[in-house]
């Protein structure tokens, strides 16, 4: 063997032992639906957000593991003391996927597009805080200031969702700053993302990221088929595993199934308190009674909901903030214990009387009401049947009515022809500002009595005041103090009964390296640039 040949073999050996050797390969997973849009900052559905997460470059990223902010395209940032502006110092020497340089003008251009009312970007509303325009101005080639008409508390986190678009590239939105770039798309079938050759990030050893060559996302709406293909090794990961499938997947060879813990989502039940609702007046009186709502809450066995419906992969509901949200949860609050005896005596104190197996109110009406939920959601239907049985034990008859989702929305948002509703809240943001649309009495998604002209009760007025106070305060500790108080009022008044927080259940192939599952979305591939595939 010549010296040249020996040198080539040696070099190949050295390369095969370096971390870079594990680079490459195509990561494959499925999404249940086709992305509705591939345009940056217009995503309203999970599939579109996934593609944007994998391809878009952002100024600041929320680290899904630590829940802390980390710098990305912005090397540093500073929020003004009055909270009305934020200044970014941008990273230099960064290029878009087509080679166009990244400058402050791109950030300005992105904000101009995003705040354009005609584009109807869902992100724009989060930045609009008062009358006036949100404006981004370049203070130099690598300095940008974004100004808001009013202070936005926790504004930094909002930038996690803003993908920077190029002002100069002829490819416009197709030129990206994220780790991957869209290479191929067949509608209804798949998308292929290729490694961005100009991605700016490098690992600790100076190797270019991402490690993976490509990502293939298949559209697979049937979770059973997705699970089967995952078990067969055709997919490398599953992000939202049903509890019924989890134990089966955990037993499958070559698969790591992980219960990451409580998610930010919650399953809730509320009573209709809309004054003009077309339901009997005596029922409205029950639903307006705090003691009635608290009695129902005590009569529900949340441990059984977690154990039976979610097979142990859920935790009893705490309140508006999941235990997964480390900073914002009120540590003083504990889950409501199952206490049917206490529920009976609470009801007796406000005039309800037992009549054999039935409970009657002070006017003699039998206590019977219905709960609507969305048909086809097996977990909710099962929860409703368990609650039906729990309430039967204290003499209350509950009629479970699954409705198709459109009919259900019609009833809870337009004609208010319902008595109680069992539904879920999905939270993607840790910050309570994301819940403004739920807690303000004037909000259209205020579940039990939406769009009030004036707060109907003193405690709703107090929640309004506290929510606005936390939204305008800059000090996180002060904000938390206000929001803790909101959580305590909600717990005392129970306009919404928090049932369970379901856990995030994920699975991934043991071939996949550097996976650190998180309760925040995207649960498995949030650190996609560091993921590796064995055998590549």
């Amino acid at each position, binding site marked *: 063997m010549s010296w040249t040949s020996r040198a080539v073999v040696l070099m190949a050996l050295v390369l095969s032992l370096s971390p870079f050797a594990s680079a490459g390969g195509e990561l494959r997973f499925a999404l249940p639906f086709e992305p509705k849009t591939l345009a940056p900052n217009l995503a309203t559905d999970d599939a579109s957000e996934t593609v944007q997460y994998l391809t878009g470059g952002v100024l600041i990223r929320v680290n899904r593991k630590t829940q802390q902010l980390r710098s990305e395209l912005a090397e540093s940032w500073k929020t003004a003391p009055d909270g009305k502006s934020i200044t970014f110092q941008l990273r230099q020497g960064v290029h878009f996927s087509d080679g166009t340089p990244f400058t402050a003008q791109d950030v300005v251009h992105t904000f101009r597009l995003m705040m354009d009312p005609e584009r109807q970007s869902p992100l724009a509303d989060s930045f609009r805080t008062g009358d006036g325009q949100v404006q981004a101005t370049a203070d130099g080639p690598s300095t940008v200031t974004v100004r808001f008409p009013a202070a936005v508390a926790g504004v930094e986190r909002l930038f996690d969702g803003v993908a920077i678009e190029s002002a100069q590239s002829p490819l416009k939105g197709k030129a990206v700053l994220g780790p991957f770039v869209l290479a191929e798309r067949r509608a209804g079938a798949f998308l292929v993302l290729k490694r961005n050759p100009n991605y700016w990030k490098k690992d600790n050893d100076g190797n270019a990221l991402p490690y993976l060559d490509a990502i293939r996302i298949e559209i697979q709406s049937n979770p*059973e088929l997705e*699970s*089967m293909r995952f078990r067969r090794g055709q997919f490398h990961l599953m992000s939202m595993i049903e509890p*019924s*499938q989890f134990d*089966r997947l955990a037993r499958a060879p070559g698969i790591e199934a992980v219960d990451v813990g409580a998610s930010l989502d919650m399953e809730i039940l509320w009573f209709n308190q809309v004054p003009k609702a077309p339901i009997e007046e005596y029922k409205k009186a029950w639903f307006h009674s705090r003691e009635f709502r608290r009695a129902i809450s005590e009569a529900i066995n949340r441990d*059984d909901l977690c*154990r*039976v*419906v979610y097979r142990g992969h859920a935790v009893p509901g705490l309140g508006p903030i999941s235990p997964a949200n480390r900073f914002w949860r009120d540590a003083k609050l504990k889950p409501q214990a199952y206490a049917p005896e206490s529920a009976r005596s609470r009801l007796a104190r406000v005039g309800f009387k037992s009549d054999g197996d039935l409970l009657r109110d002070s006017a003699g009406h039998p206590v*019977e*009401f*219905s709960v*609507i939920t969305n*048909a*086809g*959601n*097996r977990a909710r*239907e*099962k929860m*409703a*049947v*368990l609650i*039906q*049985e729990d309430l039967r034990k204290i003499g209350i008859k509950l*009629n*479970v*009515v*699954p*409705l*198709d989702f459109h*009919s259900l929305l019609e009833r809870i948002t337009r004609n208010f*022809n*319902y*008595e109680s509703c069992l539904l879920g809240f999905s939270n993607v943001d840790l910050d309570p500002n994301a819940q403004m649309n739920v807690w303000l009495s004037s909000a259209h998604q205020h579940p039990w009595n939406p769009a009030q002209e004036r707060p109907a009760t003193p405690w709703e007025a107090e929640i309004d005041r506290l929510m606005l106070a936390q939204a305008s305060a800059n000090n996180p500790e002060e904000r938390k103090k206000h929001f803790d108080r909101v959580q305590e009022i909600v717990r005392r008044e129970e306009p919404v009964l928090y049932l369970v927080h379901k856990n995030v259940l994920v699975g991934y192939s043991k071939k996949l390296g550097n996976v650190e599952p998180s309760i925040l979305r995207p649960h498995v591939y949030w650190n996609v640039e560091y993921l590796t595939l064995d055998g590549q």
Partner: protein
Amino acid sequence: MTWKRGIALGVLASIFGLAMCANLVAPYPYEKQFRDSVLAPPSAAFPLGTDDLGRDRLSRLIYGTRVSLLLAPAAALLTTLFAGAFGLLAGYLGGAWEWGGKAVTDLFLSLPWLFLLLMVRAMLPLNASPEASLVITFALLGLLGWAVSARLVASAARGLKDSEFVLQARALGQPSWRLLIRHALPNLRPVLAAQFWLAVPVFLLTEANLGFLGLGVAEPLPSWGSLLRELEDFAAVRENPLLLAPAVLLVIVLSCLHIAARGKEQWS
């Protein structure tokens, strides 16, 4: 009566009889939850195991059979009565009656059944008891499913109109209503019977489909439709083939009804 038809009717009678005595033969009430025995495998206490809410599958199957076997024939009877009345009038009287009848049946045939059922179910009062919602569901099926049968009956009635015995009766001066009731209707009986037997399995399957969508019979009342929802998880079926029990029973009943209906056609 053929021997096959005899066996089919015998099996149907046995299943029907067993289902009618559900209170006596089912080991537990259908709604009783054994929350510490969720998804228990088959055992002496639970011969078919328990469902995902800890309810005895055998008890629910027996009660569910009663529900489905009582109400599907009732809905079929309703549909047959509608189809008989409508088809007889349209076919026998002809002219504007026939034209109008055709238009109405065309309208009913073009309606998207499933969406119509979803819509009507959504408009029902929310506090209807499970029993009431059950009756309403099957009544809806009966009221919406008569159009195909009506066309067949109309066609048969049209053929009768010019038959010799009807002409003779008309020549004797008998009024139209008497011709319809005394002469046409008895001769349509075989067609109506066949339509009845064919409608029963159709309604059983429709209710099962509604059950799959979560819009069939209200919980906790079981029906074949709600029981068949457990088959959605086919990995679970592989682990516990006894989950197929309601599907097997459905196939047996449908086969028996088919044999009975065919036998009835041949016999008549």
